[in-house]
């Protein structure tokens, strides 16, 4: 029992409620938001320290013992993602202060950002399947609002599709929960794992597992990503960056959690399927990223490729490959937010998102150009930047275990990623300078600071592998050995 575990939920929840009362005072809203996110980071760092010293921390809500009550579980995998979420949100919000505009800020923007964070943190920390559903809904409902906030025509149109798809898939989630409850009689992750290990994972449970995979795959944009490019293109860039960095990652986290902790007995069926879904996702996402000349769409398709790549680590299912996936997941959250924010600056300066209409920006904005270059290389996995280690570990695992096609697809799509982001770099920053400083649609004042934080983190993740690796390995160990998780939850 550790009461700190609930703070990552409680801080944003209370802040969100508090901000409702300061609707008109935008300055107050901004200060409170900054402070609460800093606090969130501090709490998470304390928790990470505790978990690395004392092992997994749990909290039984209301004092009910695990298989019966609601339990929050903070293991290293969840906490690393919680920390990354807090950092990314902090940077996106700093960026948003200058770009989103008063109208949206007065209509509860920060409140709903906080509520979305509650949902995301809850999904990472919860210890049972039904609460995962509830926190998913908290996150999704806030994200519906953030997509449609502002009420532009394109926003309304895309948010309709996003909402339909997510409502239907949430209902499937409920159905899957119902079936699983009927079969096993429990919804607690640890208890489910124990019971399925006892009775064996028969065909029925595998079917439910694949049904759950379908639900999470829609949320994580694994193969079923048709809703993603549209929905991520329409909101303001700061919000898009948050979505790109956070929303699909919750789906990925859920797939990892359920398929390493509960349904790990039939890897020949489920994990193989996940691997091939990942391959298909990478190929289709790669084609999309290469095909478009619209900056925001290229970036949106890059989100999809990363989802496919992370899944390979799960398909291989060795401790090394899982560590690679976790590393890549954290890297991806940071670097995607960075790319979207930098792309947002480019679009803001030129007033267009068509690559063919921009050029030569590096002459007036050298720092922006170099940061984009850095982010592009990090994304493609060029050493010593952050993407490299994750890719290396995952591919090493895949090749050792004989998953050659998956490894090859991972490498080839890396080139597609590199091509698509270098296309943005070359078109946007090289060539004739079409834009004098007076013609620019906005100033970059204050926008490069949050980007710089993320860029430094990205480099730090790559160069400081030695320090990060300790924690990542701890996270991978729990994923690879479910007994650690079960003991921590059920024997407290």
């Amino acid at each position, binding site marked *: 029992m550790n009461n700190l575990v609930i703070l990552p939920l409680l801080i944003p929840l209370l802040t969100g409620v508090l901000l409702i009362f300061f609707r008109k005072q935008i300055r107050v809203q901004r200060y409170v938001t900054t402070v609460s996110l800093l606090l969130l980071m501090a709490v998470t760092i304390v928790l990470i320290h505790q978990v690395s010293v004392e092992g997994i921390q749990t909290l039984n809500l209301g004092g009910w013992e695990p298989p019966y009550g609601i339990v929050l579980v903070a293991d290293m995998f969840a906490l690393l993602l919680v920390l990354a979420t807090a950092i990314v949100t902090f940077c996106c919000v700093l960026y948003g202060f200058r770009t989103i505009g008063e109208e949206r800020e007065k209509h509860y923007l920060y409140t709903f950002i906080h509520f979305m964070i509650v949902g995301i943190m809850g999904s990472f920390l919860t210890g049972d399947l*039904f609460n995962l559903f509830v926190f998913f809904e908290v996150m999704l409902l806030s994200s*519906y609002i953030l997509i449609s906030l502002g*009420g532009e025509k394109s926003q309304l149109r895309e948010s309709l*599709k996003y909402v*339909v798809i997510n*409502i239907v898939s949430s*209902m499937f989630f409920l159905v899957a929960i*119902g079936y699983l*409850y009927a079969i096993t009689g429990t919804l607690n992750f640890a208890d489910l794992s124990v019971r399925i290990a006892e009775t064996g994972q028969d065909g029925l449970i595998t079917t439910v597992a694949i049904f759950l995979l379908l639900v999470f795959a829609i949320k994580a944009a694994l193969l079923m990503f048709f809703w993603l490019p549209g929905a991520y293109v329409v909101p303001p860039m700061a919000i898009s960056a948050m979505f790109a960095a956070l929303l699909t990652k919750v789906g990925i986290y859920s797939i990892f959690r359920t398929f390493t902790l509960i349904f790990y007995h039939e890897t020949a069926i489920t994990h193989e399927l996940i691997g091939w879904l990942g391959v298909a996702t990478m190929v289709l996402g790669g084609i999309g990223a290469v095909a478009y000349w619209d900056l925001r769409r290229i970036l949106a398709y890059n989100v999809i490729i990363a989802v496919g790549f992370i899944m390979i680590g799960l398909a291989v299912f060795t401790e090394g490959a899982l560590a690679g996936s976790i590393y890549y997941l954290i890297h991806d959250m940071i670097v995607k937010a960075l790319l979207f924010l930098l792309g947002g600056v480019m679009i803001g300066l030129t007033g267009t998102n068509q690559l063919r209409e921009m050029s030569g920006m590096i002459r007036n904005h050298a720092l922006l150009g170099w940061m984009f270059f850095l982010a592009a290389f990090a994304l493609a996995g060029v050493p010593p930047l952050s993407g490299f280690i994750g890719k290396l570990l995952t591919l090493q695992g895949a090749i050792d275990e004989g998953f050659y096609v998956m490894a090859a697809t991972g490498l080839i799509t890396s080139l597609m990623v590199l091509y698509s982001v270098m296309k943005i770099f070359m078109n946007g920053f090289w060539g004739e300078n079409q834009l004098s400083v007076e013609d620019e649609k906005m100033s970059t004042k204050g926008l490069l600071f949050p980007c710089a934080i993320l860029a430094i983190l990205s480099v730090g993740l790559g160069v400081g592998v030695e320090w990060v690796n300790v924690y990542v390995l701890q996270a991978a160990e729990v994923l690879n050995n479910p007994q650690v998780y079960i003991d921590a939850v059920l024997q407290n």
Partner: protein
Amino acid sequence: MEILMSVLAGILFTAGTYLVLAKSLIRIVLGTAIIGHGALLLLLTMGGIKTGAPPLLGLESASYTDPLPQALILTAIVINFGTLGFFLVLSYRSYQELGTDDMEELRGTEDE
């Protein structure tokens, strides 16, 4: 009773799917609502409907009905209401703003 309930859930899913596949926005909204009802019924049925006395302290009985599915659907109903309400408002606003409720006309952007 369980069989009747599961058949009913199936009918609701069928009707909901039919409506979600329609062109008109209001039908889609109603379709998601009906699918939601189907899912809730299924969730309730899955726990077994009545297998003993009500799960109250102090009743002396050999077996009790499982209260968990009821707790689950209570939560799910609230969430369903929330999303349905939001979806209705969103579709009304879109109808006002875009001037159509035909999903066929809401496909892509002009610059694609």
